[in-house]
């Protein structure tokens, strides 16, 4: 078997694995519990998710999430229950549609500002540098200086 055949087989196996991994499948209850508890902040820990924390509070939160999933609540409804008690702080990623969600605009604003600066420099017109005076403005200034010098004698 030559090298090309081996590469082709490897590529096919990789493609098959990707297709298998990306196949649509129903999310299990355990997967949903993992999803939700990964997004919830443990209230008694330092920046740890409920899923990753071993504290008693996190355990009670996981139990409550599991109970709500069994009750048929949606992920959004379960998160809303915790947000009602603890505020948006309880989510490790702030929701986009909230005041704290404004934090998501900061990198976008920084990117836009950086692009404007870089584009300006590449075009040779630095937007941060004052524009050069036109020929008419220079002539008017020279004329004014000449007049003031003449007036001073």
């Amino acid at each position, binding site marked *: 078997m030559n090298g090309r055949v081996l590469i082709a087989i490897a590529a096919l196996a990789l493609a098959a694995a990707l297709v298998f991994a990306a196949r649509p499948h129903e999310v299990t209850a355990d997967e949903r519990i993992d999803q939700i508890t990964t997004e919830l902040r443990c*209230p*008694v820990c330092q920046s740890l998710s409920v899923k990753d924390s071993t504290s*008693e*509070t996190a355990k*009670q*939160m996981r*139990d*409550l999430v599991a109970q709500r999933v069994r009750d048929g609540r949606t992920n959004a409804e379960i998160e809303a229950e*915790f*947000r*009602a*008690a*603890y*505020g948006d*702080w309880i989510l490790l990623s702030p929701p986009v549609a909230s005041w704290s969600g404004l934090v998501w605009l900061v990198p976008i604003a920084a990117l836009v*500002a950086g692009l*404007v600066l870089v584009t*300006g420099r590449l075009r040779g017109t630095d*937007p*941060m*540098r*004052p*524009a050069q005076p036109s020929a008419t403005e220079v002539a008017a200034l020279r004329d004014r200086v000449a007049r003031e010098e003449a007036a001073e004698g």
Partner: protein
Amino acid sequence: MILARVVRIAVVVAILALVVTLALAFRRDPHDIKTGTIGKPAPAFTLQRLDGSGEVSLADLSGKVVVINFFASWCLPCTQENPALVRVYERYRGSDVVLLGVNIQESRENGLAYVRRMGMGWASLSDDDGRVVLSYGVFVPPETFFIGPDGVIAGRHIGPIDEDTLVTAIETLRARAVR
């Protein structure tokens, strides 16, 4: 030229916003945190007494000022604040003010031993599965919630509480109820 001015203005606005945010953040009392539950109806609960002598339901206390104190025997600040709670309990005993203790994150045996050792005469309840803790958004004990006669959470105190703070909050709610 215009862009440079806009950038300068944006920097000034950002610095001002930062200063205002910090000023507001440092002005606020860190014990008085307004999380989601303040101003909303107190989550209902029915919990068993630590001594096993029955249940207490928040719904049965409608029309009264209810003070809920979340505590645990392993919590040192709880021990520190306890004398203030005892004095306030004696002051309002038999009145329209009800003090409830909710023991959290420990066994009933440990909670009950603590209650007896500390002379806590008010109803002490057990939140075995933490559901009440989570519905009130409690972080760590001690935390104290003030519920008005209308059943709405009017205030919350995080950390050890003193007698003045307790009495002021209770009297504010009693005065509001009279009006």
